[in-house]
């Protein structure tokens, strides 16, 4: 069984203490963090159910178990701020405010999805809220996010970029090129590294020889911090701190969140490569009941509130699914649209046949 890796770097330890020594978060923020985590899980479990029921074709890459990281890293971003997501960050749309109707239209690959049925479930963007449409090539989103941060700096905007990726991404050149460039140019970007211990079937120890991936930040002259990715308060505080610094012109931060994905890489992966004990250990560290216990301690919990939230989420999801299933597929020929800034339909659909000697005059 893979135990959570220890946090060894003294620099990172010191930064952790800074967070721990602060005043506790207010109840309103705690309740919002909880509510969002519950919503993210409810939405993803419904998508998984729809998949098993064969209600949509394709696949899904759930972040169930990682909600503390998804929510803590992206709550309270401004509309002008950019999220550069990976394939496993669909629920960050909830955090940014993308309507569930559009999110489910995306799951069902319909015309009303933000990409009008082009991208598979793993790749959802939403331009009005500055969520970059991701690709399958890992770490690319960090590099593009770095470019957005460069533009923000050049345009003297106070907007920040939150770029998310898994620990597997740190093996790619573009991961390093991105952190290096962001460091050199002191860019307003936060790199959130979700170390969920598995990159598809490959364990973190085969990606890198380090225990704490955040130590890699030192190579690029930027701050690095490792937090318990199942502790939503820790993730939120580390992220808010990094976002505040980025917004204030104090450069990028790498935040490693140690967490765990409960299910396989995707819905077709039974994840036989890991042990039952490991999974059970991490399920015992489920961030949602942990937050319920914390709210109880703080005197801010009622079971009925959870019931109300779940009823509200289920209703919103039901409505979104109804909207999505009623949304049409695009017309076949729409495959030709949005290749360039101009239409190629005429060119592709209507070919001329040329005859000899159309004109003899030169």
């Amino acid at each position: 069984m893979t135990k959570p890796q220890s946090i060894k770097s003294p620099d990172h330890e010191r930064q952790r203490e800074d967070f721990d020594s602060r005043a506790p978060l207010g109840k309103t923020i705690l309740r919002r963090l909880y509510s969002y985590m519950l919503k993210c899980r409810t939405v993803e479990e419904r998508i998984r159910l729809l998949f098993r029921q064969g209600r949509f074709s394709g696949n899904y890459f759930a972040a169930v178990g990682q909600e503390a990281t998804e929510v803590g890293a992206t709550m309270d971003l401004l509309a002008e701020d950019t999220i550069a997501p990976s394939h496993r960050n669909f629920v960050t749309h909830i955090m940014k405010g993308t309507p569930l109707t559009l999110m489910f239209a995306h799951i069902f690959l319909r015309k009303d999805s933000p990409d009008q049925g082009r991208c598979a479930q793993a790749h959802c963007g939403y331009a009005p809220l500055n969520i970059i449409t991701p690709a399958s090539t890992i770490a690319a989103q960090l590099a593009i996010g770095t470019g957005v941060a460069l533009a923000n700096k050049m345009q003297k905007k106070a907007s920040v970029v939150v770029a998310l990726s898994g620990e597997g991404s740190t093996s790619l050149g573009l991961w390093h090129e991105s952190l290096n460039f962001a460091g050199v140019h002191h860019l307003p970007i936060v790199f959130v590294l979700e170390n969920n211990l598995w990159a598809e079937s490959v364990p973190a120890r085969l990606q890198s020889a380090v225990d704490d991936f955040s130590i890699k930040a030192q190579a690029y002259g930027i701050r690095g911090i490792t937090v318990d990715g199942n502790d939503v308060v820790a993730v939120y505080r580390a992220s808010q701190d990094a976002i505040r610094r980025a917004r204030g012109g104090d450069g990028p931060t790498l935040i490693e969140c140690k967490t765990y994905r409960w299910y396989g890489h995707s819905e077709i992966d039974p994840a036989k490569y890991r042990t039952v004990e490991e999974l059970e250990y991490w399920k015992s560290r489920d961030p949602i009941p942990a937050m319920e216990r914390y709210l109880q301690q703080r005197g801010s919990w009622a079971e009925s509130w959870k019931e109300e939230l779940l009823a509200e989420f289920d209703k919103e999801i039901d409505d979104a699914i109804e909207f999505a299933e009623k949304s049409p597929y695009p017309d076949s020929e729409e495959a030709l649209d949005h290749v360039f800034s101009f239409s190629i339909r005429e060119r592709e659909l209507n070919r001329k046949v040329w005859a000899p000697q159309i004109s003899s005059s030169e």
Partner: protein
Amino acid sequence: MPLTTYIDAITSALREEMARDERVFIIGEDVGAMGGVFKVTKGLQEEFGSDRVIDSPLAEGIIVSSSIGAAMAGMRPVPEIQFADFIAPAMDSIVEQAAKLRYRSAGTQTCPLTVRVCYGGGTGGGLYHSQTNTSWFIQTPGLMVVAPSSPYDAKGLLKAAIRNDDPVLFFEHKKLYRSIKEEVPADDYTVPLMKAAIKRKGSDVTAISHGYMLQLTLQAAEKMKEESGAEVAVIDLRTLAPLDKDTFLESVARTSRVVVVHEANRTLGIGAEVSAIIAEEAFDCLDAPVTRVTGPDIPAIPACPPLEKFYMPSVEKIVAALKRTLDY
């Protein structure tokens, strides 16, 4: 109008576009303090500052990717790839990101950037400073591929590319930089993208080319005229993708004979596509098989003179192909 070199025409285009639009910026290896290895960006950092002419880390992936992100966020980046042979580390950025971004977001996220790429052989640069890899990008819908053959076109096409809303790969032949001069207006002008040019009129055979090879093709056409009186029409594709097929098909319909000349290796070079289009859409016009003069299918251009000479299409090789086609 002043006589201007290809390289000075490109520098002027960059300077004018940067002055015209504050969103335009340059990023690449050695482009700032040094002014680029060929001096294309000479003086621009002094003029526009190090924020707009950025000496990047030695990493093509982030040169292009940071440009994509910046373009998404409203800028007009002009990244430079020092040699076409160095572009492979940026392939994910160009092919999977830049080319697909508009498509995968249904037109809601776009990246108007112009990647300047120095390409081509004939200078003894060897395997890693000579390549013509235009075909990699021609095969990637979503990218525009431009390769000017003259100073006038270089300036006008680069300005058009920078103002265009699509990602453009702009191939500059290093052999052209200082070898030819042409009258180039000091005023603002653009040359239309996706529009081929008839560089020489002719009724006997159509020669289709672009870039440095276009200059050799013009020389071959002149030689044909002198030697045999044959009238060779010369078409400059200028934009290789998306291809303006009407201009060359019109000429083929008149001449019934075609020679395609390019420096990229033969297999799936632009000549293959031009030939296929002619076969599909103008088969009845042909009086002779389409002939190609191209680089051979070897990995790159070797360094020593006889091997490089073997690779490169030349005036003699083009003349021979034109004669063969006319004699068919």
